[in-house]
């Protein structure tokens, strides 16, 4: 506990640099982590590596952290930003995020440098789950959706499950994580808008081929409503189960505030679910899309 007497010394009563996680026995923590590196991977995306305490290293594929991004411009950033864990390096005690520098929060995150501190909370949510019966899976991601699917592919590879990764992007230079997928022995297929290969009809052909060749015991996707619809349709007609990681504007991250709702359909009836608590990974057939 702090021995500094608060007397308008701080703008808020919150965990301060140098203070440990106040509740090590709880599954989720709020920690002040150290930035190890924060570099561009291409024109739009950065990779952040954080030195994080042990509890943070329990994060698995599909779970997320809630990040207290610094301001990019001197004005306040009010809410945390949800970011799925891209990699957990247990031996180095590090967690990684692959993120698109887009709005104020992620731009502020982009200003952090090695040696800075960063307040993160997590791990949160329910991530991917691999059925032992699945021998080969297909992951289909667009843009930063791949940040979420990369650790799943790693998890699959570690469990001896074959992975085919279809990487979709606007242009070749924005296809990410190809090396990571290749490194785990995944078959990778790049599709881009510039040559039309990312068209739904072409991706559909690719997926049908994979189903025929016995490479698709399960489907996984993230980041595109269009691709979700496609996988749902094929999954339904060919009996391929699947999981989808969903996104929604979020506030608390714990399931308390009911801000991050999405529509799902279960047994013909529609219902709302919290992305942060019941997800962010859901049964693909139940997602209604967005």
């Amino acid at each position: 506990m702090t021995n500094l007497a608060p007397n308008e010394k701080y703008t808020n009563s919150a965990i301060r640099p140098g203070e440990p996680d106040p509740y090590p026995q709880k599954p989720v923590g709020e920690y002040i982590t150290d930035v190890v590196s924060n570099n561009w991977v291409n024109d739009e995306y950065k990779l952040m590596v954080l030195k994080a305490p042990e509890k943070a290293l329990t994060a698995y594929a599909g779970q997320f952290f809630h990040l207290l991004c610094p301001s990019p411009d001197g004005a306040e950033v009010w809410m945390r930003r949800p970011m799925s864990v891209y990699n957990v390096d247990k031996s180095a005690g590090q967690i990684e995020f692959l993120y698109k520098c887009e709005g104020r929060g992620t731009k502020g995150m982009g200003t952090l440098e090695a040696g800075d501190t960063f307040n993160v909370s997590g791990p949160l949510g329910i991530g991917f789950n691999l059925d032992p019966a699945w021998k080969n899976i297909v992951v289909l991601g667009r843009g930063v959706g791949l940040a979420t699917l990369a650790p799943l592919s790693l998890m699959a590879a570690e469990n001896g499950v074959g992975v085919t990764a279809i990487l979709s992007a606007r242009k070749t230079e924005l296809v990410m994580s190809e090396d990571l997928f290749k490194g785990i022995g995944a078959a990778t297929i790049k599709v881009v808008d510039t040559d039309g290969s990312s068209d739904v009809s072409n991706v559909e052909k690719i997926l049908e081929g994979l189903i025929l060749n016995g490479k698709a015991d399960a489907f996984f996707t993230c980041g595109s409503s269009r691709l979700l619809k496609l996988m749902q349709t094929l999954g339904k007609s060919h009996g391929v189960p699947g999981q989808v990681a969903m996104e929604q504007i979020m506030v608390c991250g714990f399931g308390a505030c009911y801000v991050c709702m999405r529509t799902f359909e279960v047994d013909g009836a529609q219902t709302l679910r919290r992305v942060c608590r019941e997800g962010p990974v859901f049964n693909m057939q139940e997602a209604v899309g967005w």
Partner: protein
Amino acid sequence: MVDLSVKIGDVICQNPIQPASGAFSWEYNDVIDLNRLGALVAKTICREPRLGNPTPRMAETEAGIIQSIGLPGKGIDYFVENIVPEYARFKPPLVVSVSSESIEDFAALSRELSVPDVDVIECNISCPTRNTSGGNFALQEEHTKEVMTAIREATDKPVWAKLSPNAGDIVSIAVAAEEAGADALVIANTFLSLKIRTDNFRPALGNKFGGMVSPALKPIVLRMVYQVAKEVNIPIIGVGGVTKAEDVVEYMLAGAHAVGIGYAGFRNPTALTTIIDDLEIWCDERGIERVTDLIGAVKDDDMEMDPLVAASHGV
């Protein structure tokens, strides 16, 4: 050792820190020890199962967030059967919050919520996006009086009235609630707000209007607590913009017995218990043995004046 405990009517709280309704749930037990809080406050429940408002339900603005959730929930029966037990596992008193659009139903709900595990019924008569005569009773004295009278007759549990900062004269609303038998006042709910996106000309929230939540509102709500405290004899729970121990002290000096905290727990999931720790240190360092010594202790009766100004005031 500082005695942080406060009594709100007959309800004993180990410290003056409570979560704010809707900004908290037992799920926060994943990250902090809920047994440390002064009270547990559940999200507002309605009779019928409700989906709530369209998304997006939150938008950031320059000076805080606006949000409009629309009181989603699985209805009163599910709440009593399944949610109350989730909270009952913890030691602090349980405050349940309730809302309805009709006075009769409000009273009936309060009766149905009067189960043994519930310690307090907080009447959310101030949901900003509900209408003036249905749900948002706290905009008018008569409506406040009628609904609180009916609730008072329906239950023996302590009833707290959560007031609206959007009322023209919150003091008269507070007096009406006290006269109708409220045991305490929760001041205040959120400020009705609007954000319009300049990229697509559309309101940023699915529900158009939302409640503004921000530390920037603290001085405004503090002023309300101060004014109301001078006119009523029941305890006040100050809610709005608390992010640090000094904010708790400020609310107590203005006359509050306790504070409710929403936003700070979103920003820092461990904030509520850190504020309790900081409050204890703050009191300890100043030799304040009982936190209750702060209640209404603002020094405002001997304001010093510059001689020239005093002369112009005829003093």
